[in-house]
């Protein structure tokens, strides 16, 4: 088990290097170099024609300075090495937009996104697993068919639609005012509020965003659970278990359930990056100051240090998620840790 984990961990290193190379290449693919882009924010581009010659000279000088400061006058592999070194010392550079350290920006917003995603992941598994078990054990009954259809409907509902509808109809506007139209806390939120009031306010604000992040997961995961269980129910060992007189509940919950949880754990690794990606839309719709919103704004503003840092950080988070799901997989299915191809 220990050696398996060590092996899995070491295997993540080439993956991480791959991610950093892609991230670095995206930066390089961007037209113009970062110094030009930084200068482009206010002075280049549209307004160039109107700039007086002496001002343009000043901009050019600044560009040369920035180029030296970022090490852009060096060869590509050297730049990459410097960037990696900075990465490990958590120096992500400064935002082009407001010159704030990128690290501070991310640290400020990371907890928000993590909170959203952890809550939604919990909700997904709590709802989807029992739903899948019910569907599989009552397969083709009226209840199963209703759940199935409902799952399809949920899966097909686009977040952009539901989110926009919620904003239009439920969050003030011309119709109902059941939920806040955005943000994490009320404007008059104060630290001296009693705990229950703080909790209530947070739940009120988080309800819609977390629901938007989760509902597709209910459908997807319960479908996987159902088909996984049906697959197992067809196996011979189920017949054996029934034939030797085990009660149905033991057959289902001990033998079948354990085996059908294996694919569910693999799927966890696939869901994680989806949640981060999905939070771009949800955070944008509900104006939640998380990583998704930061990333979207950075991309629109071509704030590449922020984009690169976010790209790398969320890739790192996802790798941790994959490692975690491998660990869980090895726990639920010991064959994986010990079994090797003959």
């Amino acid at each position, binding site marked *: 088990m220990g050696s398996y984990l060590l092996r899995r961990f070491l*295997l*993540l290193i*080439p*993956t*991480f290097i*791959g*991610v950093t190379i*892609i991230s670095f290449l*995206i930066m390089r*693919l*961007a*037209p113009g170099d970062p110094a030009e882009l930084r200068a482009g924010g206010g002075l280049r581009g549209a307004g160039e024609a109107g700039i007086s010659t002496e001002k343009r000279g000043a901009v050019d000088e600044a560009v040369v300075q920035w180029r030296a400061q970022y090490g852009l006058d060096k060869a590509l592999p050297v730049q990459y090495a410097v960037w990696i070194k900075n990465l490990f010392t958590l120096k992500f550079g400064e935002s082009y937009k407001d010159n704030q350290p990128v690290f501070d920006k991310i640290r400020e917003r990371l907890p928000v996104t993590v909170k959203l995603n952890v809550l939604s992941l919990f909700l997904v598994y709590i709802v989807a697993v029992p739903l899948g078990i019910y569907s599989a054990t009552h397969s*083709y009954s009226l209840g199963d068919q209703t759940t199935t*259809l409902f799952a*399809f*409907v949920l*899966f*097909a*509902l*686009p*977040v*952009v*639609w*539901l989110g*926009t*509808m919620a*904003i*239009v*109809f439920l969050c*003030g*506007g*011309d119709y109902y005012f059941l939920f806040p139209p955005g943000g994490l806390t009320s404007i008059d939120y104060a630290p001296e509020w009693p705990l229950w009031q703080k909790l209530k306010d947070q739940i009120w604000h988080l309800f819609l965003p977390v629901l938007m992040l989760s509902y597709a997961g209910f459908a*997807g995961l319960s479908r996987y659970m159902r*088909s996984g269980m049906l697959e197992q129910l*067809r196996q011979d060992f189920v017949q054996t278990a029934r034939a030797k007189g085990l009660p149905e509940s033991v057959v289902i919950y001990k033998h079948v359930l354990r085996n059908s949880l294996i694919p569910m754990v*693999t799927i966890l*690794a*696939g869901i994680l*990056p*989806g949640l*981060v*990606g*999905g939070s*771009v*839309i949800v955070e*944008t*719709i509900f104006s939640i100051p998380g990583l998704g919103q930061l*990333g*979207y704004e950075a*991309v*629109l503003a071509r704030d590449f240090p922020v*984009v690169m840092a*976010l*790209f790398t950080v*969320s*890739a790192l988070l*996802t*790798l941790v998620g*994959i490692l975690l799901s491998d660990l869980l997989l090895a726990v639920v299915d010991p064959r994986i840790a010990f079994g090797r*191809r003959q």
Partner: protein
Amino acid sequence: MSRRGGNSKSVWRQKIMSSSNREKGREKGAKLSALVWREFKRNRVAIAGLYVVCFLLGIALFADFLANDKPYYLRYQGKSYFPILRGYMVQLGLARLPPELLNVEYKTLDNQAAVFPPIPYRPSNVNLTASYAPPSGKHWLGTDKLGRDVMAGIIHGSRISLSIGFVAVGISLMIGVILGALAGFFGGWIDLVTSRLFELMLAIPTFFLLITIAAVFPPSIFLTMVIIGLTGWVGIARFARNEFLKLRSLDYVTAALALGVSSRQIMFRHILPNAMAPVMVSVVLGVAGAILLESGLSFLGIGVPADTVTWGSILNEARSNTFAWWLAVFPGFAIFITVLAYYLVGEGLRDALDPRLRGLR
């Protein structure tokens, strides 16, 4: 071709025979496609989904005839014209527009007779006097800020959504099945390398990658298709890999190996048909996912050119103008119905393709 067809058919027939003896007599001579179709037909929900898919394909195909500012038929200055058909010919370079019809406004033309499509607008027709018109007899689903007809936008937007869904998933399927098959069948270092590749793709925040690339390059529908396709194959590949890994240790594969059948034949003729059912699930998720992704991208105003009306771009307008509820309700419903229909059809197909499910109902 005939040998290949006969072979896979007999494999399928064997499987069906062994799994349900009930239907033994009737299976004789039936083709696989006929068997699948018969199973599929039993599933009324899937059939309903199929009708919707065909309906949507029809709308996308005939978008120009459903919503167009040109008339089907026009009688003008004593002559007859068919402007929509003529428009196609002009596009193909087969004909020229008659000089008297160049740059004319058909609706205000002093014509003797004209037959217009049911929605006499194109999504690009701007009419600033009809800004934010609620649904009415004139504009069935209302208009947006620029007075563009929402119904016309939804009809023509279906072309973009469907083509992005199909092309992107086609790319994903090809990459995914080949890589998954190689990894699962050969194992060893090939599996190790491809698994790292899967992991790399999974670890990349796809949505960030999409919006970053879309922000760096000029917006284009083709680019959007390719990026969605190139980033979406991992799910398919992982499922294919797991299936191949599972199936390669089965007796019939060992038997084929012992008979000296080549690896390529075993992989694609013997294992692939059996591995396809679970892969189909992820393909269907992929079509749905690609359409959803595209709507998300255009909702954020990224990927497709700004003047192109898509379902997502109409939705986006509703976000800042919450009084215009029709901008939120209708395009979102179009996305929803499309994704739902594909999902139902795919699921029905999966059940019909899977011989092990036969006779269970």
